[in-house]
């Protein structure tokens, strides 16, 4: 039986790493009560709250947090016609937060995610682990069988070429979830009672050329290295598909990271995911995605970006062209999506005028 950490007030407050260089982006449509549990770990950081749904509703942020909050009206005001690329009634709207942030790193978490406990019972500071993951290199070119060689207590195994041991900069840190696992609707329906109780004490780099299902619930990334590719697509209200926002972003960032020689890690940290959404509602949202996925994934697996795409934006625009070209025939939705991808880059560049931030520069 896995349980969340209930009393984090006594959690050891370590030095808040990168507190002026990292923003925490939280999409919400309900409330932010969960922040109370995270207070010892999040309080030193700046929050960007993206309020989805009804903009007239007031979302109360617990006292003591430094934050900026954007609702739909704010998004429309700031982006004008470009606001069409930001989803409504779907947590995909969080990517607006990535766009308006001025920091180097982003950590994003869902409002139904709580502090987990490690096997020794200690409350896990997920943010700290993400930061460690991002600050240490990745190793995408050769699989290390003892996983992340930069962690304490591990290293490169025999046979690992020394020329590959320096690693590459880490662009994304993908965390996992205890309790309610991130299953799709059909799996949820078949196994409604399954809980993830296994704490796998590992971080690893996802090898180059391999795609993975990226979950947005517990995710951190280097905004300067990969930010523009973290568009979470067109989902939710008025769209034929939902719950594929993070998946879409995951496929895009992975092909771009592979192309630019950046690393993506997965594994620790764990958070405690408490709410299982309604599997029938999920099925309705995901339905088309489940079929489209079968064609989308081979598409991404076959993507080869041209050499002259040397920045994230260039890669992304090229990818948008390919989406329109190859996926447009599956459904007109992909035409719209490809256009939205371009709109997103325009909006990103407008809000983040070229500085060092936007060149695919190594950290």
């Amino acid at each position: 039986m896995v349980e969340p950490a209930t009393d984090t007030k006594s959690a050891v407050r370590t030095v808040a790493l990168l507190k002026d260089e990292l923003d925490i982006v939280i999409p919400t449509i309900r409330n932010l009560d969960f922040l109370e549990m995270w207070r010892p770990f999040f309080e030193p950081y700046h929050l960007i709250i993206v309020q989805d749904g009804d903009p007239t509703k007031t979302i109360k942020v617990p006292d003591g947090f430094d934050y900026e909050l954007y609702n739909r009206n704010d998004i429309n005001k700031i982006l004008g016609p470009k606001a069409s690329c930001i989803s409504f009634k779907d947590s995909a709207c969080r990517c607006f937060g990535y766009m308006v942030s001025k920091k180097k790193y982003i950590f994003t978490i869902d409002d139904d995610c709580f502090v987990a406990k490690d096997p020794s019972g200690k409350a896990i500071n997920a943010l700290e682990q993400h930061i460690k993951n991002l600050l240490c290199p990745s190793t995408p070119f050769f699989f290390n069988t003892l996983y992340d060689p930069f962690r304490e207590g591990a290293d490169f195994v025999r046979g690992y070429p020394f020329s590959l041991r320096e690693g590459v900069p880490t662009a994304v840190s993908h965390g996992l979830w205890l309790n309610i696992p991130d299953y799709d609707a059909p799996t949820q329906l078949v196994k409604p009672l399954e809980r993830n109780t296994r704490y796998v004490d590992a971080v690893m780099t996802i090898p180059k050329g391999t795609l993975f299902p990226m979950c947005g619930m517990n995710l951190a990334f280097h905004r300067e290295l990969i930010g523009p590719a973290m568009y979470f697509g067109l989902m939710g209200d008025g769209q034929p598909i939902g719950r594929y926002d993070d998946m879409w972003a995951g496929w895009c960032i992975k092909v771009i990271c592979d192309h630019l020689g950046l690393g993506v890690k997965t594994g620790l940290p764990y958070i405690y995911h408490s709410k299982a959404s309604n599997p029938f509602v999920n099925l309705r949202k995901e339905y088309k995605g489940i079929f489209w996925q079968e064609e989308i994934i081979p598409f991404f697996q076959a993507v080869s970006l041209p050499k002259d795409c040397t920045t994230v934006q260039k890669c992304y625009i090229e990818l948008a062209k390919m989406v329109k070209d190859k996926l447009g025939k599956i459904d007109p939705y992909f035409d719209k999506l490809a256009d939205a991808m371009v709109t997103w880059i325009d909006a990103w560049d407008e809000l983040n005028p070229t500085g060092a931030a936007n060149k695919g520069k190594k950290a």
Partner: protein
Amino acid sequence: MRTQPPSLLSLAVDASVLHLSHFSDLSPLPDHILLDLFLKRTLRAGKLNEKILKLFLATGKEEVLSLIQTLNIQHILTPVLPTKSPKMSVVNNIEDGEIDIVIGALHSDLRPFMSAWKSIFSRYHLIIVKDPDLKDDLQITEGLSFKIDIYTKSHIDKVVGSSTSIAFSGYSCKYFGFLVSRKKYIVSIDDDCVPAKDADSILIDPVAQHLRNLATPATPFFFNTLYDPYRNGADFVRGLRCTNTSTEPEKRNSRYVDAVMTVPARVMMPISGINIAFNREVVGPALCPALRLTVEGKVRWETMEDIWSGMCVKVVCDHLGLGVKSGLPYVWRNDRGDAIESLKKEWEGVKLMEEVVPWFQSMVLSRTATTAEDCVAEMAKRVKEQLGGSDPGFGRAAEAMMDWVELWKKVGSGPSPV
């Protein structure tokens, strides 16, 4: 407008269509009524499902069966494979008699080893291959109920002869065991390892875990972030100090990572021969004792044979669409050897690795290679042509690989050569 009121029979058949799911047996029905029920009522009303189809099939009536065949009505296949995995004590599909445990003996006194592994190995057949360079006789505990076959230099010489370039000395001796085994699965563990213990101090059975890994599918085409979806409790899903070994000689691996995962297709990895299991029938020939360092030694730091063999097997598996898993089980490995001394020998291996990794990564085998033997033969040719020039070690490896394929064809199957 109906010209005739419905007959009692027709009303009865219509009513029965509505209640079809409650019937357990349709065979008492006269043939013509059965046909009518099936064709005109059930099919037309769209009420055919698996259960009802089975009901009609069970009648055994020829006309119904031929109708089903003509209309090409088929059972719905389950598109989603069940991922519920078997309990730890029951390994689906694999029986004890299908397994050989192969141990390469580099130490003559195997009594501590046997005693440590007794409870785990005793139900299986063991093949112990004595390192041909080992002078002393093997000491094995008497009276244990093991089924063991021991092979020594004389067996190796008899089967392999002297006309081969393959050297079976040192850690490579166990490949002889792989060659002469006639079982479907092989588990091989180095003779300086003992079972690890879990958090409750219970011995971990690596054989059972290996067999579970081998019995459940692998997922090489996409990375599952919850690792092996076929493990119990998992399924498919929707720094700081960044240091390096030579600076920390005291480091021991104390982290137990409770995961098994498939290493994705086209991703290369260093496969260690210390604790390994494989499906001999499918990839046996691909694990070959080919790359030897010029001063290959008797400790793992001084060998590269398993790393090379592992990369060959990974390329073969990727080509044939087979999976390679990494992770559990752990075994406990004791300290052996002197790192600095070994480094003097190992540097050669380190240098060789720099060249071979990119080379293996770019390897694409031809479509005509459909078996492991074909693949290895093709790879051997390429090693000779493309790597042979840069280091004589590669040229020798290529020859060894070719000899291995020949050897495997000759004595890898059929009656045991020993």
